[in-house]
């Protein structure tokens, strides 16, 4: 018993493996790469390249601050965020439920699956104009676009997650005479949590792409609109500022997911 306890403690304290670098080295390296890239851009722009075409980090920074101050950034970003998050929520929920239902649907799965994959192979970006015809140029057509972008990955991950559930665990639940609700709570949902988090992570990017593309196609607000407007004005600094804003939002959302994932997967 005492020996077993020691083993348990040794497992709890994970020693750093050889070849694994410390967090400080990693972060210093990352900062160095960032400074180098931005520095090169700043230096070469206006010297090696015409800054009219490639703008400059300093100009983008100034524009960003101006837009924060004037409230323009929030005006556009909040619109894009609202579309992306609403669509992400609907698409994740719908896709995940669909994945679970179809994985358990028996022969129906075999009827439907190839068609779902056929639709998935469609370049969904090209559906944006269709959604505008169907739902107008307001918010709903854009949310539908985002849903179309994210629902397949959500579906696929939930479906694969279900198929990868440890059969012994389900048999174990059966021998305890668990009802479907207990099976779902104790085994199915925790089993597919890893898969759902993966799809969520992939889908953050997809949702932003969907929202921005929908705005590019037709809108009078949002970061996508701001980019296309700047492009019409030949304002490259504006284009880059829009892109940087989208990137910052993606990074922010990803961090939120990482925190959630750490909590949900702390048993691993």
């Amino acid at each position, binding site marked *: *018993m005492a020996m*077993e306890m020691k*083993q*348990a403690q040794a*497992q*709890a304290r994970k020693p750093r493996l050889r070849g694994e670098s410390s967090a400080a080295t990693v972060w210093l390296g990352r900062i160095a790469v960032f400074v180098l890239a931005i520095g090169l851009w700043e230096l070469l722009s206006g010297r090696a390249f015409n800054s009219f075409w490639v703008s400059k980090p300093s100009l983008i920074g100034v524009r960003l601050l101006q837009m924060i101050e004037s409230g323009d950034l929030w005006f556009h970003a909040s619109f894009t965020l609202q579309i992306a998050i609403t669509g992400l929520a609907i698409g994740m929920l719908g896709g995940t439920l669909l994945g679970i239902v179809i994985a358990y649907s028996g022969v129906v799965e075999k009827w439907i699956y190839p068609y779902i994959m056929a639709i998935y192979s469609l370049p969904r970006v090209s559906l944006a104009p269709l959604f505008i015809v169907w739902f107008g140029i307001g918010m709903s057509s854009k949310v539908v676009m985002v849903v179309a972008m994210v629902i397949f990955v959500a579906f696929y991950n939930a479906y694969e997650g279900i198929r990868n559930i*440890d059969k*012994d*665990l389900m*048999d*174990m*639940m*059966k*021998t*305890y*005479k*668990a*009802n479907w609700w*207990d099976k779902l709570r*104790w*085994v199915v949902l*925790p089993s597919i*949590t890893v898969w759902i988090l993966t799809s969520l992570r992939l889908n953050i990017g997809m949702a932003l792409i969907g929202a921005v593309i929908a705005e590019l196609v037709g809108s009078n607000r949002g970061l996508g609109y701001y980019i296309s407007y700047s492009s019409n004005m030949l304002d490259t600094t504006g284009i880059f500022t829009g892109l940087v804003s989208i990137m910052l939002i993606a990074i922010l959302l990803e961090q939120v997911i990482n925190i959630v994932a750490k909590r949900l997967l702390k*048993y*691993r």
Partner: protein
Amino acid sequence: MPSSNHPKLDIRDLRVEYYTKGQNTVALEDVNLKIADGEFVSVVGPSGCGKSTLLKIVSGLLKPARGEAKIDGESIKDVPDQVGMVFQNDALLPWKTVQDNVRLPLAVKGKSKAEQEQEVNRLLEMVGLSGFGGFYPKQLSGGMKKRVALARTFAYDPDIYLMDEPFGPLDAQTRVKIGEEFLRIWEKVGKSVLFITHDIEEAIALSDRVIVMTARPGRIKAEFKIELPRPRPFYDIRFDPQFKALQREVWLQMAEEA
């Protein structure tokens, strides 16, 4: 239904087949086996002879192609109420702590939170894991996981324990220790056990009866009544001359199959 009229478990003319990829495998053939209430029966046999299949039939997870299995005189259709399984690989939920894993059958039965907690504490103490309730399975050694799996099955408190090579993956030392503890607990609980193992010594030391099976398709080849007195010293019994004689006989039967 009065259990005195029926054996606890009654398996008759059992034949089990698997179909996969158009292939038909006969896993068990002509298996007849009765287990009395409170009897400890072990099954030994070469790997792939259908030992796990036998347990799946008794736990209602698999349907026989012919014959039937009855518990308390009633034919097994769905998963019966009376059986509790200890899986070869523990089948612990990795995302649940030790206490939640042990709590599972109690929660499924709809016991109150207070009852669950009290029972979990009692069981963890019984298997020597008090203080580990908050650990995740990942943080435990193989022997400790096995104790959790046992505690969970004790929590369910079935009439028949179905155990599929439960101590198989453990090292020799831990294996003897856990076997000893299990025997001590079982002697108090006194429920029927159908125990699968490939370890002849373990089978004899634990059981009232040892069944030897043939290679696939599995049939019952020989049966040995173990009349060593109880309570038994799980390890020291191995030096008993009667034990040695039995061990030799069982081994001879098994050797013909390999």
